[in-house]
């Protein structure tokens, strides 16, 4: 299939919606919340055109439930929300993990706790994305830094969701969601519209949770001769309850390992002037743009600064962070929270000094603030 490329000027939220459609998503269920509402609005119109369905649910709990039901029915589905809504979704995100239902949850982060500085940007749901739902589990989360990323990473999110039969969080922030930039859209590929792991075994022999070597079971939507089964409770390969200690260990470990064993492929990062850097700036989302500007300004002052942009937040890119930070004398971690990512950086790179640039006042971090921190590491 030839790629028809189409360049447009659009908003991050719009690019996310278009990315989802390009990935084959045909069902959206959500509950409006700023700064994610544009995604719902675009879906209400575009899904009519695309032969899909937009549903405005009674709350985020229902929205998350409905996309799991849609995924069980064999459809690519997603929802979009912001902090408080993401909190409401958590129990059912656990359900998607346990039942292995591919789906995408877009969280356009805003300030908190609670209603907080409603609609103002923040990057404070890093840990909520990782540990918001109870129990030991793995999760995949991606952080766009630009409108182009919003489009591309949404497609990647659906790709990972299908490949690992797992919910995937697109962890954006208000700045990225609301900024407007030029985006190159690719034509949806035929593959993007189909499921990654359709059951193609012998009819009548389907076992909903029988995993292949990659730890991922194949998928048979209802309506086929083989019955689909999904179970929130501890279950074995058949999908029926099995509460033995051995089975529980096997299932929880498999759900964890299917993601963590592939971390090398899932973990996306970008490096900028890191080859010889004395000071490494580790950042994500909109902040990564300020970090690049700061690193460039530092270089002009003769300070060897470089940037590591975290694109895949979860699983945390331990390898890349260790490698880049291992070379540096100091690490600066700017983030619009009080140090959620800095804690992870500290976990994997115990050597150099780690300086946080933290802002929780509803304003973005400016390059000069990061530059000052870079300078400060030398004194």
């Amino acid at each position: 299939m030839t790629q028809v490329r189409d360049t447009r000027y659009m908003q991050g939220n719009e690019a996310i919606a278009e990315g989802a459609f390009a990935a084959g998503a045909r069902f959206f269920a959500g509950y409006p919340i700023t700064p994610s509402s544009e995604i719902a609005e675009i879906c209400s119109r575009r899904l009519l055109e695309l032969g899909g369905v937009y549903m405005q649910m009674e709350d985020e709990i229902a929205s998350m439930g409905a996309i799991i039901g849609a995924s069980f029915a064999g459809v690519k589905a997603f929802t979009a929300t912001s902090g408080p809504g993401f909190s409401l979704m958590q129990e059912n995100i656990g359900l998607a993990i346990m039942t292995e239902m591919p789906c995408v949850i877009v969280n356009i982060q805003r300030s908190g706790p609670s209603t907080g500085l409603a609609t103002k940007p923040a990057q404070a749901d890093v840990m909520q994305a990782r540990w918001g739902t109870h129990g030991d589990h793995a999760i995949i989360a991606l952080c766009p830094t630009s409108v182009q990323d919003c489009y591309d990473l949404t497609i990647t999110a659906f790709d990972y969701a299908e490949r690992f039969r797992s919910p995937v969080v697109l962890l954006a922030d208000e700045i990225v969601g609301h900024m407007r930039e030029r985006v190159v859209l690719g034509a949806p590929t035929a593959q993007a519209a189909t499921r990654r792991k359709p059951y193609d075994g012998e009819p009548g022999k389907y076992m909903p949770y029988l995993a292949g070597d990659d730890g991922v079971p194949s998928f048979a939507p209802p309506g086929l001769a083989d019955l689909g089964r999904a179970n929130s409770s501890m279950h074995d390969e058949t999908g029926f309850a099995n509460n033995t200690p051995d089975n529980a260990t096997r299932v929880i470990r498999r759900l964890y390992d299917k993601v963590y064993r592939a971390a090398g492929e899932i973990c996306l990062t970008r490096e900028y002037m890191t080859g010889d850097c004395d000071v490494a700036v580790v950042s994500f989302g909109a902040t990564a743009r300020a970090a690049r500007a700061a690193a460039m300004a530092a270089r002009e002052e003769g300070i060897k600064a470089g940037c590591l942009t975290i694109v895949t937040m979860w699983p945390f890119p331990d390898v890349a962070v260790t490698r880049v930070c291992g070379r540096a004398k100091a690490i600066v971690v700017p983030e619009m929270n009080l140090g959620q990512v800095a804690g992870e950086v500290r976990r994997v790179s115990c050597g150099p000094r780690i300086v946080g640039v933290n802002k929780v006042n509803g304003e973005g971090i400016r390059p000069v603030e990061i530059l000052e921190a870079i300078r400060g590491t030398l004194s």
Partner: protein
Amino acid sequence: MTESKAPRGANRAYKRFLLQRALPHFWCPGCGNGVVLGAIVRALASLGLSPSQVVVVTGIGCWGKADDYLNVNALHGTHGRALPLATGVKVNRPDLTVLALMGDGDCATIGGNHLLHSARRNIGVKAIVVNNLNYGMTGGQYSSTTPGDKITSTSPFGDPERGLDIAGVAAVAGANYVARSTVYHAAQTETYIKEAITAPGFGLVEVLSTCPTYFGRLNSMRTAVESMNWLKSAAVTAKAAGGMSPDDLRERIVIGRFCSRTDPDFNQRYEEIRQRARDRGFRTREVVSGR
């Protein structure tokens, strides 16, 4: 069981829907859940459905374990969320029969908001609610349907709250089909389930049931038989109830069909909207079955 005496044909077809190997079930002796399970499998069989055409979505609770015994597509979800899950299935696969099996706690207490909106939306899901007037699974605490003053493990001297009329709420909120029966009225329960499945839009069948282990024992019905007798004697048909005073009705259970409408369901209305968009010049694609 008297199945050997039953006539051949339809009456045995229910076996296709029952997972014999999963039996015996985990419910207590005298629990009403088995009666409702029987009514469901007989209803499915007599409608001539095949297991692959049926999706059962359950929440969490004693009744929420019903999917373990059913040979159909099954999605066992979180407590109170069976209706949104079922909504996601039904919207995308209108060709399938989607049943949401919920306890009273599941459907009307923690999931009360979803009940309201599923009925209002008239989504073509069929809710089969087993109302045992308490939370069986967690040890007999009071539910939103526990009648005022009844004793439960969290209302040792009586429930200060008043009970909710599930069927009444569903009917008022806009469900196309609403009926109530009890596990004593097994044949009627089966009829109502069949009617709910064949009616378009949201259908709800509430079945008053026995929980001898908790509700019965704490409310001077020491045996399952006493609970059954209570359901039998408290039941009054909707028709008869029409002529009774609120005082007379206080301790009674009104059974019957409360509404049976043919309003378009959500999927039908969504396609009407899609057509409207097309008429206004929107280029809309045909819906691919199963998308």
